[in-house]
């Protein structure tokens, strides 16, 4: 099914929270320039799974994993892995938009200032502008770059968070239900954006909106109670699911 070189993969992955096994033996691969949707009912372990790839679960002391996670064939959980380096490559957009209470400009510039990669103000300005353009937000905010980001609308805030993630030029974008708190128009903008962004990034998106998964993704994985029930091309998952449970969920019999 997937015979190109994988950008990111999980092999026989188990995730534990204390004694609870949140993910059981999941194996799947993500391809460059494709959108991968992870669907399933709330609490099935999708978000947990997403946070494995940029090691955000490291923050939770009770969380531990078994199995392997590979980025370009490199073990993400290897002893010598620089986690900050990893997170620069694997960007993340959170479910609830979380801009810093700083100006719009400073939000986008944050990651660049942190790693000191910009030589001068002009370069920084250019990257901030480019990131806001990539996130389809530039036209709306170019006149108010020094306004507090918290004054933006919910949809704008979420696109700002995407711009902030893009600014440090990641290779992969993990999105944890990025549109779940937004109105349909803002959701539409985010979906268009995802379609644009996949030309340059590997995208993994968690959603519990099946229509959204069907619209924007190339591959879909269905999670149920910590188990990856089925994973494959979106068109096939939605038209001829192999597993009864997938079929049940997609046709709306439970979930």
């Amino acid at each position, binding site marked *: 099914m997937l015979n190109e070189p994988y950008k990111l993969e999980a092999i026989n992955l188990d995730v534990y929270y204390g004694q609870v096994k949140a993910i059981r033996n999941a194996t799947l691969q993500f391809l460059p320039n494709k959108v991968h949707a992870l669907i399933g009912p709330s609490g099935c372990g999708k978000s947990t799974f997403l946070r494995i790839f*940029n090691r*955000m679960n490291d*923050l939770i002391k009770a969380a531990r994993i078994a199995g392997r996670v590979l980025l370009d064939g490199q073990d993400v959980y290897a002893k010598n892995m620089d986690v*900050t*380096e990893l*997170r*620069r490559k694997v*960007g*993340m957009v*959170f479910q*609830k938009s*979380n*801009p*810093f*209470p700083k100006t719009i400009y400073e939000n986008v510039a*944050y*990651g660049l*200032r*942190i*790693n000191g990669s910009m030589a001068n103000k002009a370069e920084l300005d250019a990257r901030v502008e480019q990131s806001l353009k990539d996130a389809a937000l530039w036209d709306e905010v170019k006149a108010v770059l020094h306004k507090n980001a918290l004054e933006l609308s919910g949809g704008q805030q979420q696109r700002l*968070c995407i711009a*902030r*993630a893009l600014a*440090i030029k990641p290779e992969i974008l993990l999105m944890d239900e990025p549109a779940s708190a937004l109105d349909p128009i803002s959701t539409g903008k985010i979906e268009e954006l995802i379609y644009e962004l996949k030309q340059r990034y590997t995208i993994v998106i968690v959603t519990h909106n099946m229509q959204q998964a069907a619209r924007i993704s190339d591959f879909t994985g269905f999670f149920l109670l910590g188990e990856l029930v089925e994973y494959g091309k979106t068109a096939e998952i939605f038209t001829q699911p192999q597993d009864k449970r997938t079929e049940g969920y997609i046709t709306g019999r439970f979930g």
Partner: protein
Amino acid sequence: MKFKTKLSRLSPNTVQKIAFAGLLAATSLVLLPVLLLMAVLIGKGVTALSWTFLTDIPRDGMRSGGIYPVIVGTCWLVGGTIAIALPLGVAAAIYLTEYARRNFLTWTIKLAIVNLAGVPSIVYGLFGLGLFVMLLRCGVSMLSGSLTLAILVLPIIITSSQEALASVPQSYREASLALGATRWQTIWHCVLPNALPGIMTGAILAIGRAAGETAPILFTAAAFYLPHLPNSVFDPVMALPYHLYVIATQIPNIGQDIRYATALVLVAMVLGMSFFAIIIRWHYRKKRC
């Protein structure tokens, strides 16, 4: 059941009115001593207040002249206290909130902080005398006084800083870490700036506390009479609370108004600090919403 039938004769609305009236009365009672205190201090002390009183040195065995070295001495003592306690306290709060694991050591430290806040101030004074004045040979000096006061206000600063740090949303930390920031970068660039108003509030409350304490400086810093400003941190210093104690009990034939005016200056300084803290907090809350 009997109780219930008895009460039920009053309508719930009446019960509510009585309860609220009682609560209002209790709350107003708290205001009373403050208003009374201010009224007495202003009434009896305002006649002695003048520019000269604030800018002249004490004269005639402290019976006339001003309290300039006393005011400045207080400011210096308190300034030294904050210079020592603020960095230490904030550092401790950062460690406890952001880094410390839940183990026996952390538990002990937290317990120590709570206990430190409950120690009577005279004990700090004697402790300062033993440690800073005698053992470390700093003498009765501004340095010893500031160090002693610093230990006194440390729990205030640590506790308020911890609260300020904990109130910074976890999502800010996550956003910062997900952008490849280290934990320290996250604290320095993201958490600390957002916690700053809360930390400032704690610091100002600590200033007010330090400015008003007598017992900790009694044996460690306070000079009975020093008609000039101290030359170095190793000199003793005059300070408002101790000076007030001295002129109230040790100096015969001194005008009442001078005593009240001195008390008024002290209370005004401490209340002014608290007021300043409230304004900062209010301004910050308004900005956040």
